[in-house]
């Protein structure tokens, strides 16, 4: 891949010339420009990349186009990039990204990381992004041939490609039990289990649209699941929180009662904490597992002993119907035994089935739920409605009770899904 620029007219344009980008070499934060400029000494295509980027800076314009590229047997995982300036920068004519599945929790041995880097360097520009926002390892700068060769070799070395297109996307989880005392279940195991169990859905885009699963060990949501994934799997607990009163007393001695009142007691969303002398009493019936008090007093307080997950559905960013947020679909389930995991995959299977059977093209699950209504959706995936799925019950009095409205008119049709779909408010 170390091919030199092959003639053409824009030949001098392939020589590094980046006065604007050079401005980004200044300042204390590590500079990707400096790094890539140095690297371009070994990889001439990187000089072209920087020059094209310089053009972008100058013209406030972008020069990439692209689609999803197929690797044999794969539908996703490679993001094609073709330069509009291929004449000037011939090595950018094909300059694809390979999305590589990261180890759960983004943990690496130097051996594996070197192995990865070496393969990417050999078949492409060798630039790595650790990690993409969905969690993939992003390896930049492969032409068509290089993409395929790199993919092959990566796979031969125990790596696998990530998701793209209308598929399950690469899962992402927080560091969890590997280091964090808050973790309510094994996020890494869950992530790896689900990735491998559903690997075929990751690779073959056959969903209505993309589906992201993110896994956080507790409500703090370090994996960014709640507002950026279709299905957040969130650690939580059942039963009483663990309170170590000796450590509570220590906390008070160190920080004072006032600090405790102002920062713990009055900040509990359901005001279910009280102080009796130096004892902290939690009304566990009313605790909603928000994690706040545990965060502040993480030595003294811990999640309860009976642990599990809350499963939500529906977040995505803003295109089309506006931002959607995730909402609770399973308030609590344990996630330890094989049966627990089977229950989880069973649930996911039902969710996907109902969604893929009924959604419209390009409709993510949050948009789908928004359209058909959570009630219909919950029924569609075979769950019992639970008041914990909602913040409050309905205010709109117009309801189609199936029980109370047996077809009165000849030929009355049941709508599938049976929902009230709103038409536009404007009736111009």
């Amino acid at each position: 891949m170390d091919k030199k620029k092959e003639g053409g007219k824009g030949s001098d344009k392939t020589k590094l010339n980046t006065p604007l980008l050079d401005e980004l070499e200044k300042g204390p934060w590590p500079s990707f420009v400096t790094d890539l400029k140095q690297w371009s000494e070994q990889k001439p295509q990187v000089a072209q990349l920087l020059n094209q980027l310089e053009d972008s800076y100058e013209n406030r314009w972008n020069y990439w186009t692209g689609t999803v590229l197929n690797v044999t047997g794969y539908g996703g995982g490679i993001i094609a990039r073709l330069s509009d300036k291929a004449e000037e920068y011939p090595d950018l004519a094909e300059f694809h990204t390979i999305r590589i599945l990261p180890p759960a929790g983004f943990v690496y041995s130097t051996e594996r990381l070197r192995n990865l880097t070496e393969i990417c360097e050999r078949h492409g520009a060798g630039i790595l992004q650790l990690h993409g926002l969905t969690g993939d390892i992003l390896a930049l700068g492969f032409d068509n041939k290089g993409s395929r060769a790199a993919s092959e070799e990566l796979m031969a070395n125990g790596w696998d490609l990530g998701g793209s297109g209308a598929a399950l996307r690469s899962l992402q989880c927080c560091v969890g039990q590997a280091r964090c005392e808050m973790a309510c279940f094994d996020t890494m195991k869950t992530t790896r289990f689900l990735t491998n169990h559903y690997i075929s859905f990751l690779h073959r885009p056959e969903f209505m649209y993309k589906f992201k699963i993110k896994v956080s060990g507790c409500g703090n949501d370090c994996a960014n699941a709640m507002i950026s994934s279709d299905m957040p799997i969130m650690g939580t607990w059942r039963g009483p929180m663990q309170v170590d009163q000796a450590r509570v007393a220590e906390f008070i001695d160190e920080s004072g009662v006032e600090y405790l009142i102002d920062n713990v007691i009055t900040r509990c969303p359901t005001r279910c904490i009280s102080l009796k002398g130096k004892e902290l009493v939690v009304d566990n019936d009313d605790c909603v597992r928000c994690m706040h008090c545990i965060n502040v007093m993480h030595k003294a307080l811990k999640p309860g002993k009976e642990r599990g997950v809350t499963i939500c559905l529906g977040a995505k960013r803003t295109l089309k119907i506006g931002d959607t947020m995730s909402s609770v679909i399973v308030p609590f389930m344990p996630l330890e035994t094989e049966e627990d995991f089977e229950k989880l995959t069973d649930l996911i299977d039902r969710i996907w089935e109902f969604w893929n059977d009924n959604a419209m093209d390009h409709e993510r699950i949050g948009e789908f739920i928004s359209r058909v209504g959570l009630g219909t959706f919950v029924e569609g995936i075979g769950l019992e409605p639970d008041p914990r799925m909602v913040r409050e019950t309905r205010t709109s009095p117009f309801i189609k009770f199936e029980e109370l409205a047996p077809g009165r008119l000849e030929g009355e049709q049941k709508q599938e899904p049976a929902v009230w779909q709103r038409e536009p408010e404007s009736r111009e």
Partner: protein
Amino acid sequence: MSTKLAPRDQGVPDHTELLHPGMAKNYGKWDYHERIRPGVLRYVAENGDSVYTVRAGSPRTMSPNTIEKICDIADRFCQGFLRFSMRTNVEFTVDKEELVAPLIEAIKTELGFPVGGTGPSISNISHTQGWLHCNLPGTDAAGTVKALMDDLIDEFENERFPNRVKITTSCCQINCGRHADIGIVVQHHHPPRIDYDNMQICDLPKVVAICPVAAIRPKVVGGTPSVEVVDEKCMYCGACHGQCPSMEIRDADTDTLSIWVGGKGANTRGGPSLMKLAVWGLPNNPPRWPEVSDAVRKILDAYKEGGKDWERVGEWIERIGWQRFFEKTGFTFTKYHIEDGPNAMWTYNRSTQVRI
């Protein structure tokens, strides 16, 4: 815009001439009030003057006989003045404390009205027209109120709740009865039937336009322009029925009643809020609607037991959570409790915060 009065536009009577002298004298100069007993408020002016207001529950719909009795009492005790409250109660004002007891006696014996509705009690139910006089009702109004208040009169005459309890009823899905702590609402369960033989559509485009889900389509029937309803789209709201009497939304056999909770207009604490569905499918059961009284009781009992001082019904539920509300009332949470109207997504639980 023209603001000149037209000849017949004479406007509203002058209230300053209709005020009890005690109220007129200290208008805008009140210092504080006291609830000296259920139904009786003492208002103290900055200058130390007091007036006493006795609140009596009325049936709202009254004959001249009853009004004459009211006037008679007001003449004897209140210098010929009286007022009605926002919840159709009659308020008698006197300026001497010793008049309170005989006034109450007169109200009870001569008028037969109970005294109460103040402070954290259940005041009179705001009601609508019903079968007595509206063109759209699926149930009665005055009757449901009477039946329910018979059951709740104890709570009108006492102040035993965490905060005031406002109840409303509505006799069709138009819902003239407003939001309240507890609201009783009729529900229809079928698309409107169109009576093609007696079409009285005055304004076809208006009828088509009124449907919120565009379920009404123009259609020529028997040669004349008319409309049809796309049943699958219709959400049984009855908006068309208000516009076009020939589109019959009601059904004596299938209409039901539902109960909604947690509405509030006061800006106190969390501010105004709309009422939300508690229980549905109650039978429309005249003359006394016992199932409705029953369900209302369940809510009130749970609220009385569990609510903290100053918590309105909705605030109590918000604090304990809907899950507990259903536990405590014994109602069942169903998929229909989940909003599917506009803004549904805002009602979902968009956090992992749950009581487990």
